C-alpha cells in the first residue's frame, strides 16, 4: 500500500493511494495561493490599475514589457490569474479508478485530472458536494471569463531569478494553469457518482468505500476505505464544533489500520467562536458609523452562519434595517440549495422541516427583503435597491477577481468603511497588497471551524489507529509563527509523514482474504476434532475468481485428476506402539517383534519381510512385499490422528 502526495498545500489536498491493485485519489484540491501574484481583474477599466508603472528586470529582453507591474514596491503579473494544479508525472491519471471528494473545497482541480488525461474512473462525492462544488467552480469561471484580459503573460516565468521577492519565490510557476471553462466543468462532473453518508460503494470489486459525516460543511465527509480485513480512514476537513452541518461521525473511524489526516485548521491561532463575535461587533460598529462593510466570501459555507448570527446581532442592537447584499453569480442557487439539503444538516436545523420551517433563517431574511441576492453589481435591480450604509457579502476571498475588486475600488478611500476577512484561506495583507494605499479599515477575523491541533490530537487518541499519516508540515510550527511550538501536531507516537511529490509506503501487510464456499462444498467436507472447540478438515476445491471476488466450489470432473495427486489427509501426533501391535495382530499379522532402541522402536514382521521404524514424529515402513504395504498404511493411519 502506497501513498503519493500530489499537492504541497495540506488544505488543498490531493493524494493518491494504491491498495489491492486499486488506485484511489483522495481529494482533488486546487491550490490558489498563486493568484496573489497577479493583479486584480476589475469589473470596469480601473484608472488606478492601468496607471501602475510597468516593471522590467535589468537583464530581461523587451518581450517582458508589460507583463509585470509595480504597486507600492510589490511586483504583480498583469495577466488572467493562474492556479496550481495537482502535480502531474507522479501518477498516471488514466490509471486512477476512483476519486473520492471529501467536500466542495477539495474538488476544484477536478478538470485538470479528468479532462484530456485518459481518465476512465469515477468521481465519488455526496450530492451537496456536487451541487455546491459546481457553484464554486462555475462562480470561479464566471468571475474570470466576464473580465477578459487581452494578454496572457508567461515570459516572466523564465526570469524568475531576476525578479524581486516574493514573486521570485513562487513555486514552479511553469506548472501553473489558467482557469478552466464551463465546458470542462461539465465534462469533469459527468464522471460523478453520488453517494449518501454510510453508503458502501464498491470499487473494482476489491474495496468498499464509505463516506461518513465530517461536520465541516454541507455534505462534507471523511472516507473509510475497507477491504474485508483492512480499514483505512481518510480524514479531511473535519470539525468537532457545532455549526450547521451534520455532526462528525467519529465512531466509524475508530480502530483503522491507517488513519490519513489532512486539511487541519488554516488559522489555529484564532478561535472561530470569538472571531464570529468580533465579526458581528465590527460590522455593527462600521454600519452604525455610517460606513459600509465588505465581506469577501465564498458562495457557501460559513457565510450561512454569518447571515444567521449577524442578523440576530443587528436585531439585538436595533440595526435591523441595514440591508445585506449577497452578490455572487450563484448567490440565489446557494441560498436555495442550503434549504433543500435538510438531511445533511445538524439535528436542530433538520428538526425545523418537521414544523414546516426552513432550516436556515436566510430563507426568512430573503423573503422579507433583509438579505438580497444578486448575480453581480450589474444585475437587474441592484442599483435601485442599493442603499448605504450596507453590508455586502461577495466573492472572491482572494480579492483578485469577482465583485469584491470593484467594492474595494469604490469604498477603499473612505476610512469609515471596513473590509472583514472571515475566510481563512488567504493572508489579508497579501490579498490587499495590489490595492494599496488603502484607507478602508481591514478587520481580520478568520473563521475556520476545522480541527485545530489540540482537537486533532484528542480525536486521534479516541480513534486509536494503528498507524497515523499526516503532512510533514504539521510537525513544524506554522511558517508565519515559528516560535509557536504549541502549534504542531504533537502525538505520542511519531506519525508517518508525506510532502509534495513524495511516495510513501504505508506498510500495510495483508494476510487474509475473504472467500465464499458453496453449500455443496461445505457439506462435502469431513471435519475432525483436534480438541473441543477446534475442528479442522483438509479441503481441495476449485477456486473461481470473478470481479475480484473469490468463490470455492467442488472440483469438476476434469480436475479430479489433478486433485488425486494431493493428499487426502494429514496424520499428526505420536504413534502408540502397543496400539499398533494390537491392531497388527487383529489384522492377522501376529509375528510382530518389537525392539526398543534409544529414541526409536523397530517392529519386524519377519514373514512379510517388513520393518517398521517408529520415532517421535515419523514412522518408516520398509518392505519388500508390495502386497502388504497398503494394508499396513491403513492400519498406521488408524493409529494416528489425522485431518
Amino acid at each position, binding site marked *: 500500500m502506497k501513498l503519493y502526495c500530489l499537492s504541497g498545500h495540506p488544505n488543498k489536498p490531493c493524494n493518491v493511494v494504491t491498495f489491492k491493485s486499486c488506485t484511489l485519489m483522495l481529494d482533488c484540491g486546487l491550490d490558489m495561493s498563486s493568484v496573489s501574484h497577479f493583479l486584480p481583474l476589475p469589473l470596469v477599466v480601473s484608472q488606478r490599475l492601468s496607471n501602475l508603472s510597468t516593471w522590467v528586470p535589468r537583464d530581461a529582453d523587451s518581450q517582458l514589457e508589460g507583463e509585470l507591474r509595480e504597486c507600492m514596491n510589490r511586483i504583480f503579473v498583469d495577466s488572467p490569474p493562474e492556479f496550481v494544479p495537482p502535480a502531474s508525472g507522479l501518477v498516471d491519471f488514466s490509471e486512477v479508478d476512483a476519486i473520492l471528494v471529501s467536500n466542495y473545497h477539495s474538488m476544484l482541480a477536478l478538470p485538470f485530472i479528468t479532462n484530456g488525461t485518459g481518465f476512465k474512473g469515477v468521481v465519488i462525492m455526496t450530492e451537496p458536494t456536487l451541487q455546491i462544488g459546481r457553484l464554486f467552480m462555475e462562480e470561479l469561471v464566471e468571475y474570470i471569463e466576464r473580465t477578459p484580459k487581452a494578454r496572457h503573460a508567461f515570459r516572466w516565468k523564465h526570469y524568475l531569478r531576476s525578479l524581486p521577492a516574493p514573486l521570485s519565490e513562487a513555486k514552479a510557476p511553469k506548472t501553473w494553469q489558467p482557469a478552466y471553462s464551463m465546458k470542462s466543468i461539465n465534462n469533469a462532473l459527468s464522471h460523478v457518482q453520488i*453517494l*449518501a*453518508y*454510510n*453508503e*458502501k460503494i464498491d470499487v473494482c470489486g476489491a474495496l468498499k468505500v464509505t463516506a461518513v459525516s465530517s461536520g465541516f460543511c454541507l455534505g462534507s465527509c471523511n472516507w473509510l476505505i475497507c477491504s*474485508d480485513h483492512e480499514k483505512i480512514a481518510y480524514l479531511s476537513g473535519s470539525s468537532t464544533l457545532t455549526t450547521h452541518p451534520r455532526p462528525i461521525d467519529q465512531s466509524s473511524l475508530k480502530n483503522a489500520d491507517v488513519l490519513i489526516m489532512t486539511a487541519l485548521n488554516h488559522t489555529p491561532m484564532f478561535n472561530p467562536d470569538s472571531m464570529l463575535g468580533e465579526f458581528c461587533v465590527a460590522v455593527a460598529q462600521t454600519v452604525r458609523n455610517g460606513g459600509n462593510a465588505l465581506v469577501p466570501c465564498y458562495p457557501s459555507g460559513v457565510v450561512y452562519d454569518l447571515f444567521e448570527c449577524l442578523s440576530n446581532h443587528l436585531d439585538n442592537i436595533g440595526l435591523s434595517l441595514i440591508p445585506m447584499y449577497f452578490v455572487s453569480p450563484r448567490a*440565489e*442557487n446557494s441560498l436555495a*440549495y442550503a434549504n*433543500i439539503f435538510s*438531511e445533511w444538516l445538524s439535528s436542530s436545523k433538520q428538526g425545523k*422541516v*418537521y414544523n*414546516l420551517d*426552513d432550516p436556515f433563517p436566510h430563507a426568512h431574511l430573503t423573503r422579507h427583503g433583509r438579505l438580497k441576492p444578486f448575480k453581480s453589481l450589474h444585475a437587474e435591480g441592484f442599483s435601485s435597491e442599493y442603499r448605504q450604509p450596507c453590508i455586502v457579502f461577495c466573492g472572491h476571498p482572494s480579492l483578485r477577481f469577482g465583485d469584491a475588486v470593484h467594492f474595494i475600488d469604490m469604498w477603499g478611500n473612505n476610512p469609515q468603511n471596513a473590509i472583514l476577512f472571515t475566510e481563512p484561506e488567504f493572508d489579508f495583507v497579501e490579498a490587499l497588497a495590489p490595492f494599496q494605499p488603502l484607507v478602508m479599515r481591514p478587520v481580520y477575523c478568520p473563521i475556520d471551524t476545522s480541527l485545530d491541533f489540540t482537537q486533532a490530537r484528542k480525536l486521534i487518541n479516541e480513534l486509536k489507529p494503528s498507524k497515523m499519516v499526516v503532512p510533514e508540515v504539521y510537525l513544524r510550527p506554522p511558517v508565519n509563527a515559528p516560535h509557536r511550538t504549541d502549534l504542531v501536531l504533537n502525538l505520542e507516537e511519531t506519525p508517518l509523514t508525506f510532502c509534495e511529490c513524495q511516495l510513501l509506503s504505508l506498510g500495510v501487510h495483508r494476510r*487474509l*482474504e*475473504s*472467500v*465464499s464456499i*458453496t*453449500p455443496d462444498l461445505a457439506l462435502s467436507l469431513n*471435519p475432525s476434532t*483436534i480438541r473441543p*472447540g477446534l475442528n*479442522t*478438515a*483438509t*479441503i*481441495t*476445491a*476449485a*477456486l473461481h*475468481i470473478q470481479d475480484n471476488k*473469490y468463490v*470455492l466450489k467442488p*472440483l469438476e470432473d476434469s*480436475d479430479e485428476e*489433478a486433485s*488425486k*495427486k*494431493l*493428499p487426502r489427509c*494429514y*496424520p*499428526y*501426533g505420536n*504413534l502408540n506402539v502397543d496400539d499398533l501391535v494390537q491392531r497388527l495382530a487383529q489384522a492377522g499379522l501376529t509375528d510382530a517383534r518389537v525392539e526398543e532402541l534409544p529414541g526409536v522402536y523397530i517392529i519386524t514382521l519377519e514373514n512379510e519381510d517388513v520393518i517398521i521404524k517408529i520415532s517421535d*514424529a*515419523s514412522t*518408516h*515402513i*520398509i*518392505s*519388500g512385499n*508390495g502386497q502388504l*504395504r*497398503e494394508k499396513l*498404511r491403513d492400519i498406521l493411519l488408524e493409529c494416528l490422528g489425522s485431518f
Partner: protein
Amino acid sequence: MPDIKATPLGAGQDVGRSCILVTIGGKNIMLDCGMHMGYNDDRRFPDFSYITEGPLTDYLDCVIISHFHLDHCGALPFMTEMVGYNGPIYMTQPTKALCPVLLEDMRKVAVERKGETNFFTSGMIKDCMKKVITVSLHETVQVDSELEIKAYYAGHVLGAAMFHIRVGSQSLVYTGDYNMTPDRHLGAAWIDKCRPDLLISESTYATTIRDSKRCRERDFLKKVHDCVDRGGKVLIPVFALGRVQELCILLDTYWDRMNLKVPIYFTMGLAETANKYYRMFITWTNQKIRRTFVHRNMFDFKHIKPFDKSYMDNPGPMVVFATPGMLHAGLSLAVFKKWAPNASNMVIMPGYCVQGTVGHKILNGAKKVDFENRTSVEVNLAVEYMSFSAHADAKGIMQLIRHCEPKNVMLVHGENAKMDFLRQKIMQEFNINCYKPGNGETSIIPVSSNLDIEVSLPLLKHTISCASQTSLTASSSSKDTAASDETQPKKQKVPESKKQKVLHGVLIMKNNGVRIVGVNEAWSELGVASHQLRFTERIEVDEHGPVPALTSSLHTLLSQKLGASQVQAVSEYQLSVADSLFINIHDDEPGKTILLSWTHQDEALGSKLLDIIKSTYKKG
C-alpha cells in the same frame, strides 16, 4: 441455515392494511403497519396479538415503513402507543414529516366526525413519531451488529422507499408501493442488482398493462375538458399527497396552454400544507423539478384556487380536487352526494379503490349507493376510472424482477385472482418460486447461500500462481508425452483465466471463526505436530549390467511416463522424482535392488511409480 419466513398480517392477497412480518437470519422485522380503509371495526388494524404472546418490543427487531400512505402507516400509533412497542422504527425523512400530518387528519375524521372513541390521540401520534429513525437513500443503516437495511427510491409518492434487508449472507427486498415510470413530479423506482433471496413486491396492477402515460394524460384532459365544455362539474377524489400534486401540475399546464377560464379548486388545508413539504423535499422529486426549482417552483400553481365548501352549490362548470381519494368519507364524499344525481357531471377516480368504499362500489357500476344513516344517492353522473396511481403495472413488476434478480418472489398488496395470473407468469419467465400467502398464512422460503470465510493470502496467491504455472508447463511439455498430446486441444479451448484453479489447504474452525490456511501454516495454528509416514519399497530386478546403465534406463522410462521435468538424476545410482521421491539402486549380485522411497504426502505418485517399476522390471 434457517429459512426465511414471511407472514402477511395485512395485504396478503388483498389491498389495504399492509403489514408483513418476516423472519430472516433469526431477526424479526415488521414491514409497514397500515390500516384498512374499507373497514371501520377491528379489521381495520392488523391483528398484533397474532405476532407474539409477550411484548412486541422483545420480539420485533425493527419496524420499517415504506411510505406515508395510511394503508402503510395508519396503524403505527395504535401499535406503538396502544399495543406497546418501543423498538426502532425506520422511514425516510419526507415520510417522517408527512406521516403525522396524514395520521392527524385521519384521527380527526374518525374521532370528530364519526365520533369514535378508543382511538389514538394527537399526543400518541407525536410520541410515536419520536421513536422514528430516518434513513437516507442508499445509506446502509446498521440496526444491530448483524441486521442492516438500505433504502432505494420507489417513486410512488414523495419519500416512498423500497428496503433491502440483510442479515449475514441472507437478504430480502420489500418494495412497498412503487412506480417504474417517471411522472411529472417524481422519478422512477430504482434498485441495483442486489440478488436478494426474496423479493416481496406489491401487485396492485398485477394484470394491467397500461398504455403509455401520454395517452392516459391526453384522455384525462379530454374528458375533463369535454365535461366542463358541456357545463358539467368534475369531481376528482384524491388523497392530499401524491396524485393530487401530479394531476395539479397536469391540469395547471393544460389550462395555461388552452387558456381556459373554468375554475379549478383544491381543498384547503392538507393539500396546501403538502405543497409546502414538496417544496422542501425537492431532492426527492424528479430531475426536471430539481433542475429548475431555484427559479420556478412547480408547486406554485397559477390556475388552481383553494376550495370552500359553499362552492359546491355554485352554478356552472368547475373542477374540484377533493379528499379523500376513495370516496369513503370527508369532503369528497360530500361533494359526490351533491353532484351524483346530475347526469352532466362527472367523477374521475384517478386511483385504486379498496373494497367496501363508495369509490369501489361506483366503479363496479352501482347505480345507487346506500349509506350508514339509511340515506341513499342515485348515481347518474358519469363515472370514469383512470389509472393515475403511481403503481408499477405488470410490465413494471417484471422489469423490477429482471433488474434485481431475486431467487424467490412473494406477491402482496393485490387481488388474489390477479396475483395468480402474475405468479404463473413470473414462475414461467424467470424459473423461480413465487409465493402469495394470504393474511395470517406463513410462507417458508428455503434459502441456501454461500458461506463467507477467510483464507490466508499466501495460500490464495500460491493457488493462483500455481494455476498459471501448470498451464504453462502443460503446453511446453505437450510434445514429450502422448498422454498430454491428447489433452492439448482441450486445454487450448479453455482460456487461462477461466481455467480452474485448484486450492488445497486446511480448513480450521476455531472460536466461531472459519479460516483456510496452507498445510504448512496449519501445523502451528492447530498446535499439533505432523507425523511423517515414509514408505520404502524394495524391488529386486534381474539386471546384469552396471548400476549406471540401470539408472539411466529408469531415468528414460520415468521421463517418458511422467514428463522430463519431473525426473532428476542425483548421482549414478540415485534419481529423484518431483523433488520429493527418491530411487536408489544397489548392486546386489547377481541382480539389482531398486529402493523406492516416498512419504505419505506423495502416496499417489509413489504407488504409481511402484506400479511402473514393477511392471517393467518384473523379476523372471
